[in-house]
């Protein structure tokens, strides 16, 4: 008896809440179907990483890999794994660091600008590239950096130097990625910092000024501490992307000549998977990447919650 009473109540409560909230649940159906189909159903496909996939037999019918970690072993034994990991980590880390620094600096400078129309014009043009596709930005880069007719090539020729094709140069490829990444994203990323700067109590600045603090001292002692928590939160979020060096950008920019410095895990997953049709290997490498990314986000967030700055 003691057990059955709460059980009945629970089901009772369930029925009552469904009756009361059914419209809300009905509203969510389309969205939940999308998530179930395109986010959760693929998670079942992860078993491909451990299968010797045969197109004719399907996912279930294909035999298991012998040993189960066969695809992973194949990847780590291949000569590419070192290069891919190195490129991915270097590009992702450098991008994160520079993008953060650039966005904070831009926000600081914009925040110090006292001519409001001037500030607005700069902001407007700085947000613009965020909405352009990587293909368009590749086109703009091409206009400046191509060997035959690029702007930089012409300047070099005018200076009497032999122009090189910057888009196929292993020395230049990564800096090119960084520059275009910063050009595209800095304006938009600075919005968040500007927002958190505008929520700093203005009396702090006035008090500091009365105490004789100059502009730079005010930035150092008031503005920067004021955006600290936003900055930390964004850092935590970007930890998870440390394995994602930016497929969107690199796939559009790279070519075989710059695989040495520009080939990353995601581009490899794409080529092996959809060009060579080696589904098992591609899924395994993708899983390796996603799992590490997820573990990193989870761990950092746990740590941050411990310090009281969690993201969820």
């Amino acid at each position: 008896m003691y057990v059955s009473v709460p059980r009945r109540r629970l089901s009772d409560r369930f029925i009552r809440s469904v009756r009361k909230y059914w419209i809300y649940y009905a509203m969510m159906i389309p969205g939940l179907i999308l998530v179930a189909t395109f986010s959760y159903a693929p998670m079942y496909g992860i078993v491909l990483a451990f299968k010797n996939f045969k197109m004719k037999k399907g996912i279930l019918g294909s035999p298991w890999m012998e040993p189960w970690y066969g695809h992973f072993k194949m990847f780590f034994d291949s000569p590419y794994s070192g290069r891919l990991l190195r490129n991915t980590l270097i590009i992702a880390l450098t991008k994160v660091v520079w993008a953060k620094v650039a966005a904070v600096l831009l926000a600081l400078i914009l925040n110090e600008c006292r001519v409001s129309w001037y500030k607005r014009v700069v902001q407007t043009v700085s947000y613009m590239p965020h909405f352009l596709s990587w293909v368009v930005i590749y086109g703009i880069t091409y206009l400046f950096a191509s060997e035959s007719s690029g702007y930089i090539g012409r300047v070099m020729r005018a200076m009497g130097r032999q122009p090189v094709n910057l888009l196929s140069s292993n020395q230049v490829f990564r800096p090119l990625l960084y520059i275009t990444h910063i050009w595209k994203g800095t304006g938009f990323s600075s919005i968040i910092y500007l927002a958190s700067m505008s929520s700093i109590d203005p009396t702090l600045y006035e008090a500091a000024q009365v105490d004789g603090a100059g502009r730079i001292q005010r930035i150092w002692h008031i503005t920067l501490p004021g955006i600290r928590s936003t900055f930390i939160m964004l850092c935590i979020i970007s930890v998870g992307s440390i394995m994602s060096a930016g497929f969107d950008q690199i796939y559009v920019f790279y070519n075989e000549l710059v695989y040495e410095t520009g080939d990353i895990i995601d581009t490899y997953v794409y080529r092996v998977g959809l060009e060579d049709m080696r589904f098992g290997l591609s899924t395994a490498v993708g899983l390796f990447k996603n799992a590490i990314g997820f573990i990193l986000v989870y761990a950092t967030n746990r740590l941050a919650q411990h310090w009281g700055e969690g993201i969820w």
Partner: protein
Amino acid sequence: MVRKKGLMTATAGEKVFDLCVLVILGILFLCWFFPLLYVLLASVTPYKDVIKGSLVIIPSSVTFTGYSYIFNFTNIFLSFRNTIVITVVGTALSMAVSVLLAFPLSKKELPGRALLLKLLVFTMYFSGGLIPTYMVVKNVGLQNTLWAMIIPGALSVYNMLLIKSYFESMPAALLDAAIIDGCGPARTLIQIVLPLSLPVLMSVMLFYMVGYWNTYYSYVYYCYDKTLRPLQVVLHEIIRKATGEAEAEEYIPTITVQMSAIVFTCIPIICVYPFLQKYFTKGVMLGAIKG
């Protein structure tokens, strides 16, 4: 922002500082503006002038051969049509799905809400990966249709959460009053909540629209029919052809043609952008506050 004159007694040091700020911002402005302007100029400069290098800032003469070439000799119009269909249908679908998911989730008393939120947020940080998703798209029968570029990415959990947190910030008394007046959930959403959420809806709509307009990878992943190519794919081919990457075809597009194609691709975004700019700043700030 108007500063109070009394406090800001401008010393010489302050003036120098202000001047430095203006100069740095001016340089930054040029860093963003000059490449965009240069693309526009290169699209109307005759190719031989571009090669010679006479185009530095002002083109020597103006030509529209680049534009007439892309309209006459490439199938950019077909892909333009594809992209418009994807953008219009996709944005409408995405907005509907997101709003319908966000509204119930903004009800704190909804049973099962916490679990659903956890499941949704999880998908932002972990995914099955390229091939498993490809297999699903293929098995559902979307492969090689325009829908493949719309449906798989129709719901952005991040955008949905932006809308949700805006709904949550609405005064509860207002919604309670509506319910007391006999307003059902659907009517409350349409007649009261949506009209009051214009800023967040506009910014999320802009994000979705731009996302669909820039459709590229979902074609590369899921489609091979050339008549389905979206604008960005054709643009990439036009630019790549000159670098000798694509299969050798009859004609190598000149810089003028390439830049004309870029300008053509960007026009809609540049047209929409100024109207929605005031909204998306708010949208991003909201995201910052709510995380």
